[in-house]
């Protein structure tokens, strides 16, 4: 018989305000095997843990139940506490009477009854717990960063600086990401390329960093400390070692009509191209879909003009397989498609553009050479209208329910830059709320209004109608005046909602990392573990986790690197001992369990078995504890009931069921 101690936490008033803690203690004390029960205001505090430790020692407890917050919060804390007091850490069970009880109920009687039942279930389970010993696994001291934007670059640099090798995988021909497309950055207005390029160069030159551009992650296996990743390097058709980056091939390429992705398709590019002048690596790729040589077999001009002999039409995709201890997802974002927002006439007029397109128009290397002009006729606009929250804060199913966070600030930036460079241009911003929570952010927005005379109107736009003369009639509302207003504009800029890059979803399933309804990756804890995925060994950097501006992205990238370094600094990891095992007397070697195991952790051995005095050789399932992750799929599949899972055994779960239905 176990000697069980029950510890009920008040969590200040978080639990005690709705659950009568003393009654829970009283009820628990009456349960069979319970030799000690007590409450305390904060069980997780040092004093609370000391109480638990002394009770374990003084009363010789063999198992404890802590009635407190979610085990996802403090199970580890109490296990360590038990271990320090000499109790096996797996002899600890948590009854979640906060998240699953006190916080969701109002009626004290009801909540107290439920807390008692949850405590009983945990006591019933702990009766059947057995001491478990964690195993150990090795850590591959190399990290993989997926995505080569500012988030990925910063994370990689920080990890590399700590002395660990890092690989960056970027699907585009160059690293740089969205930040490379921006003209200026808020709230300081420094030039985006000027602050990004040095970081790109540093990453490329760093002895600990390898960069795979034009590459994608194809397959991920393994687990924390020991991932194996297949990376597909798309055929570049250019030999990276031979190419000198002279650019002659791009100049001579006769296929020039491909929409230029880097310029948001506002301009065109050649079929052999580097996305932008400061590209890293400065080695072009051949876009085979648009290359005349690949389409018709006739051309080969780039090969002819290349003095270095770097052009290689025979290259094919290459798969690199590498081992990593940690994986960082930094896949960034794109703007949403506007095809469900016809009222803004984005598809009907060239002069209705997204803010990211405006970045390219404002940029000296962009399609208009940095000159603000209408894409329809090249004329300078006189009247510009910015519309905020296009597709953000939309709960009607057309857009995104969240705030994209960066639009208020970049719109203020755009408005300010335009008024500064072209004082004759009138700028109006339609906004619902101006959100500027950041250092020097509100001051920045106010400068746009007070110093630069940007006209901010509180209200949304209902329709943008192209007029026969090529201008745009913007019908909006002015909520301060309580009326509808109309502005005839030359250009309209839409602050389009951002969404996670489409690659995030596929990647999340490969990594078994969870993802929310908007396809943002979920963090292990929204406040306390914001850069870790719930899947051990997977970390989140930048907008893949949620909308962020550059300063925030860089901070998060650094935090993410710190977590990765913390992992890679370890020589070995303790593994989860809650693994499956088979009962050799029941196992008939049918292979059903091995067929459902996602980790290939089950193999078969011929073993001598003594079955009630009958000796014989049998084929028995054997679980490799280093590979088993403890999902339990095999336990249910096993037709003879031979497979069971430690920590969540059949008997333990049934004991919980019985306690709940009692």
């Amino acid at each position: 018989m176990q000697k069980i101690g029950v510890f009920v936490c008040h969590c200040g008033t978080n639990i005690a305000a709705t659950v009568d803690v003393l009654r829970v203690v009283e009820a628990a004390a009456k349960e069979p095997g319970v030799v000690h029960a007590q409450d305390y205001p904060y069980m997780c505090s040092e004093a609370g843990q000391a109480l638990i430790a002394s009770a374990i020692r003084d009363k010789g407890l063999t198992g404890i139940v802590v009635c407190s917050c979610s085990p996802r919060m403090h199970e580890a804390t109490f296990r360590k506490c038990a271990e320090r007091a000499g109790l096996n850490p797996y002899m600890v069970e948590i009854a979640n009477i906060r998240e699953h009880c006190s916080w969701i109920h109002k009626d004290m009687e009801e909540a107290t009854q439920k807390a008692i039942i949850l405590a009983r279930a945990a006591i019933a389970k702990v009766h059947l717990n057995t001491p478990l010993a964690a195993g150990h696994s090795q850590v591959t001291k190399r990290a993989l960063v997926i995505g080569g934007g500012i988030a990925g670059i910063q994370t990689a640099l920080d990890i590399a600086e700590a002395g660990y090798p890092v690989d960056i995988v970027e699907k585009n021909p160059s690293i740089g990401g969205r930040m490379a497309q921006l003209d200026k950055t808020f709230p300081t207005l420094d030039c985006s390329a000027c602050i990004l390029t040095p970081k790109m160069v540093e990453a490329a030159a760093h002895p600990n960093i390898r960069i795979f551009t034009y590459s994608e992650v194809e397959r991920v296996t393994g687990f924390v400390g020991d991932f194996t990743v297949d990376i597909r390097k798309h055929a570049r058709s250019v030999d990276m070692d031979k190419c000198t980056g002279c650019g002659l091939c791009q100049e001579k390429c006769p296929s020039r009509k491909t929409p230029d992705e880097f310029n948001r398709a506002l301009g065109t590019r050649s079929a052999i191209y580097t996305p932008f002048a400061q590209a890293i690596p400065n080695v072009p790729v051949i876009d085979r879909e648009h290359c005349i040589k690949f389409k018709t077999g006739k051309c080969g001009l780039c090969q002819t003009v290349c003095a270095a002999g770097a052009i290689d039409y025979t290259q094919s995709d290459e798969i690199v397989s590498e081992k990593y201890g940690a994986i960082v997802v930094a896949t960034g974002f794109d703007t949403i498609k506007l095809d469900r927002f016809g009222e803004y006439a984005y598809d009907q007029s060239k002069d209705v553009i997204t803010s990211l397109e405006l970045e390219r128009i404002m940029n000296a290397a962009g399609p208009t050479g940095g000159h603000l002009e209408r894409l329809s006729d090249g004329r300078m606009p006189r009247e510009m209208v910015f519309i905020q929250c296009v597709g953000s804060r939309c709960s009607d199913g057309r857009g995104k329910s969240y705030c994209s966070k960066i639009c208020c600030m970049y719109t203020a930036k755009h408005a300010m830059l335009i008024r500064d460079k072209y004082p004759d241009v009138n700028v109006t911003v339609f906004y619902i709320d101006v959100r500027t929570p950041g250092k020097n952010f509100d001051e920045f927005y106010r400068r746009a209004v007070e110093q630069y005379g940007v006209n901010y109107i509180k209200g949304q736009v209902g329709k943008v109608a192209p007029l026969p003369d090529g201008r745009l009639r913007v019908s909006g509302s002015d909520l301060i005046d309580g009326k509808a207003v109309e502005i005839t504009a030359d250009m309209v800029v839409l602050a389009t909602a951002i969404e996670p890059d489409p690659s995030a979803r596929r990647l999340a399933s490969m990594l078994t990392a969870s993802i929310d309804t908007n396809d943002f990756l979920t963090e292990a804890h929204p406040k306390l573990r914001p850069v870790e995925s719930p899947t051990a060994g997977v970390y989140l950097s930048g907008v893949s986790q949620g909308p962020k501006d550059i300063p925030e992205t860089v901070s998060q990238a650094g935090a993410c690197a710190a977590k990765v370094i913390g992992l890679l600094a370890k020589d070995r990891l303790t593994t989860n001992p809650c693994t499956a095992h088979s009962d050799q007397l029941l196992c008939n070697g049918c292979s059903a369990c091995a067929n459902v195991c996602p980790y290939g952790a089950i193999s078969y051995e011929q073993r001598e078995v003594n079955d009630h005095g009958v000796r014989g050789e049998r084929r028995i399932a054997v679980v490799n504890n280093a590979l088993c992750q403890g999902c339990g799929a095999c336990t249910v599949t096993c037709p003879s009931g031979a497979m069971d899972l430690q920590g969540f055994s059949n008997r333990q779960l049934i004991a919980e069921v019985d306690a709940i239905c009692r």
Partner: protein
Amino acid sequence: MSELTERIMEISGADPRKCMKCGKCTAACPVAGEMDIKPHQFASCLAKGQSDLLLSSNTLHKCLSCFACVERCPRDVRPGRLIDAVRQCVVRARGQAFLTPEEIPELLDDELPQQLLVSAFRRYRR
């Protein structure tokens, strides 16, 4: 919540509390200029429980039920339905109409389609 507000929410099946006060309904409304109380103010009055203010609004008869506000509302508040629900509360309570059958003949002309008469009558009286 007042009984009237509750009735309006029930008849309309729309929830004014979802409104984030962006004003897109008013911006999308082709007759907002004619209305004494604008579509977005309907949502906000209802959310504040000031529904009695709305009963005498000319908006009830200016609204065309063209659904531009409903289609473009980013929060699925459906202002057009709210306006119609208030209008129904008025006609049902008052038992009299904005338009009476006696007034009709002088408004008719040769080309006027039946659809117009039926629609107007449905909207203006009960």
